[in-house]
């Protein structure tokens, strides 16, 4: 066989795959809604993208929609004292004078601070910025916990003098990739820049959603403790999203808000991915998807009461969990219970799912066990068709 690079067969999937990378207007909508949610939930958010993607105008739009005061600062043309405060000697005492924008943010409720080009600012400016982003403190002035912090950065390979974010700073943000899809630009130039908004959640619903999300997350981390903290090896990856207790906490808050605001699962996927990175995000979302499925032990105890989920992939998950359960502890009774579930699958329009599991189920039957005739009758046509008997 000639050596054709395999990954090329599927084309430039790498760029397509990385969840947050925008391709279509749907991806743009999802990223946009995550941004709104982050601002509303006071989760610091950073937008990665080349210059000229309309980041500033989107944020102005959101600030106007939420009726909040916005300060826009370009970090790359600022000096450290613009963020850390200007040292002033007065009567032998040095104090740090806050800049005007910090005063304004401290005076209003629910302000928004947007710092652009954070990764092209000189190192001392970045260091000063850290405290603003992390503690919401500029000089001697506290901006207030109701302030939302947004940052924007150019990917290091696109900015001549840009570099990776320091891991402690990176880990405080939800990371979003911000490239305008061609569709959005096309419509925008025709005078129709799309914008999105979300409904403010009902406070009680929000609290319930946040509690439910924390419970789900702690269940997930109990089953995957190795994902609690994963520090990536390379500096570039450390400058993006990775799992730590803090970023999982951000996941719980954002995902709770997304539930309370009735946003769809593409928004959740990108929000979780932006906090903890693709691998852990996919695992958590799969866990979350299947959290409401019945416990296999309960089904085995009362197989006749079991109601099939209405989605085929969920039935598949249930079937796989049942097979795992009887393999863990095999008795005649448990084996027969699975037979009842398989028959239900076969007779309610999913004989192919039943056969998928029946193959192993028949092969692994305990001594003296015989499948019910009615089950076999429902499976045989398909087993024959697939040449499995």
């Amino acid at each position, binding site marked *: 066989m000639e050596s054709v690079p395999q990954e090329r067969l599927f084309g430039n999937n790498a760029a397509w795959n990385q969840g947050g990378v925008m*391709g279509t207007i749907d991806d743009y909508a999802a990223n946009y809604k995550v941004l709104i949610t982050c601002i509303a939930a006071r989760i610091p958010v950073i937008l990665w993208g080349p210059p000229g993607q309309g980041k500033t105008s989107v944020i102005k739009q959101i600030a106007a929609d939420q009726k909040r005061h916005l300060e826009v600062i370009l970090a790359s043309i600022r000096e450290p004292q613009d963020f850390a405060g*200007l040292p002033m000697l007065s009567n032998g005492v040095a104090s740090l004078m806050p800049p005007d924008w910090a005063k304004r943010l401290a005076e209003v409720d629910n302000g928004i601070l947007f710092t652009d080009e954070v990764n092209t600012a000189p190192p001392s400016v970045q260091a000063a910025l850290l405290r603003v982003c992390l503690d919401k403190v500029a000089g001697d002035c506290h901006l207030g916990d109701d302030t939302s912090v947004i940052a924007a950065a150019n990917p*290091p390979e696109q900015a001549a003098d840009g570099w990776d974010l320091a891991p402690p700073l990176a880990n405080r943000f939800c990371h979003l990739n911000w490239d305008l899809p061609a569709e959005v630009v096309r419509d925008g130039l025709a005078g129709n820049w799309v914008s999105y908004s979300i409904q403010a959640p009902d406070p009680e619903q929000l609290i319930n959603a946040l509690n439910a999300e924390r419970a789900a997350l702690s269940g997930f981390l109990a089953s995957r403790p190795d994902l609690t903290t994963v520090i990536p090896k390379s500096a570039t990856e450390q400058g993006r999203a990775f799992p730590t207790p803090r970023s999982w906490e951000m996941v719980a808050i954002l995902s709770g808000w997304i539930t309370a605001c009735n946003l769809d*699962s593409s928004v959740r996927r990108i929000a979780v991915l932006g906090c903890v990175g693709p691998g852990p995000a996919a695992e958590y979302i799969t866990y979350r998807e299947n959290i409401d499925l019945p416990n296999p032990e309960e089904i085995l105890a009362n197989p006749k009461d079991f109601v099939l989920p209405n989605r085929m992939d969920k039935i598949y998950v249930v079937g796989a969990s049942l097979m795992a359960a009887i393999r863990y502890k095999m008795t005649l009774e448990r084996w027969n219970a699975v037979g009842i579930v398989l028959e239900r699958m076969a007779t309610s329009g999913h004989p192919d799912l039943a056969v998928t599991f029946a193959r192993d189920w028949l092969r692994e039957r305990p001594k003296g066990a015989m499948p019910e005739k009615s089950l076999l009758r429902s499976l045989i046509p*398909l087993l024959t*068709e*697939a040449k499995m008997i």
Partner: protein
Amino acid sequence: MSTATAVAISEDARLRVMAARIVAQSRWPYLSTLLFNLKIVESQQVGTLAVDEGWRMYYSPEFVMEQTPEALATMVLHEALHCVNQHGPRFRALAQPAELHVAWNSAGDVGINRVLDDAHMPWGGFEPLRFKNLSKFQVQAEMSTEKIYFTIVEYINQHPEEFKSQSDCGSIVGGKARGYEIARNNSDNPAIKSDQQDVIRDQVAQDILNFARVKGIGTMPGSLLRWAQDLLEPKVDWRKALAGAFRSSLATVLGRRDYVYTRPSRRQSAMKMGSHEFILPSMRKPAPPAIAIIIDTSGSISPDEITVFLSEVDGIVKANGISQGVTVIPCDAAVGEIQKLRSRGAITSLRLQGGGGTDMGVGITAAGKLRPTPKIIVVLTDGYTPWPDTLPKGVESMIVCLTVNDSLETAPSWAKKILIEEEQ
């Protein structure tokens, strides 16, 4: 045909599609979630098989009855791979005329069929579209689907008379909804929404990675494994990583163009207001630092690799404006001939002899003795070497580029480590 025969064919055909799905699932169990999410719908209007944007799979009962379950299973996997590859959204993103979806379909099909052929999947009597069928378009196997598509379109524009409609896999590959498609909210077979499809794809990718971990990576098509890795464990290209490490080293080494409070600002005298005085920082831009590159010449690194690597470093150095140039130190168990790199062209004429044992420590010590002292040392090695405990005096940063994954652990923790991965 009488109604009774039609019903009989209809039932047999549905059974055959289900059987094919079971066979497909047993071949590639990691696609289970996706395969069982395809809703199967009979249609008299499709010629073979087709999938729509909502992952409903339509089949022609006459066609499926002519296929064996094994061959049909291969076709089901073909349709599933359209779903994996997001051919629909990718075509939409290209913003091409909708009627050209047939060309896009061909471009997607050849890639998918090659994966299936590589896995020795049976096709029965059916002749799938292969690269050899597209030879007149000058399509190459290593092209991306997008590239193949544009190559075909270019040919069509030049020879419009030769273009005849190819097979159509349905709206999963883009274009407008087909006439036979059922409503998106059909109560028996509702469409799967695109956000749910993303979640399913994520799950398939996890299943692929788990399968590869348990059964070994040789047990599945390499392209699927790569797809899953790209999706869930994206690797940063080493060039990006190196450029990033280099920039941050340059930026932190002596604070290239930065503000300092250790020297008074030139405008300080104007900063008095009554009894108050503002303290301004001054700007400082030290001379660009010298850089030394130590190259492991113990034999495990190919000359090609070294050339690629050096051009990368030279490019970064140029971009960051280091006038001092770069010193190259070949090193095996002893230090070789130290040479200064003054231009990109000089890279190919470097003399890199070696072949003995390996000790990067002596190279690092030699770099420390250069005048002016290099602020940044870059080491290119496979990593099977002893390392010093600290950097030589005056050197501020070290970037280690490793060609072997296992060496990431043994290289010193205070160095910036980058794994150079071969493109396959």
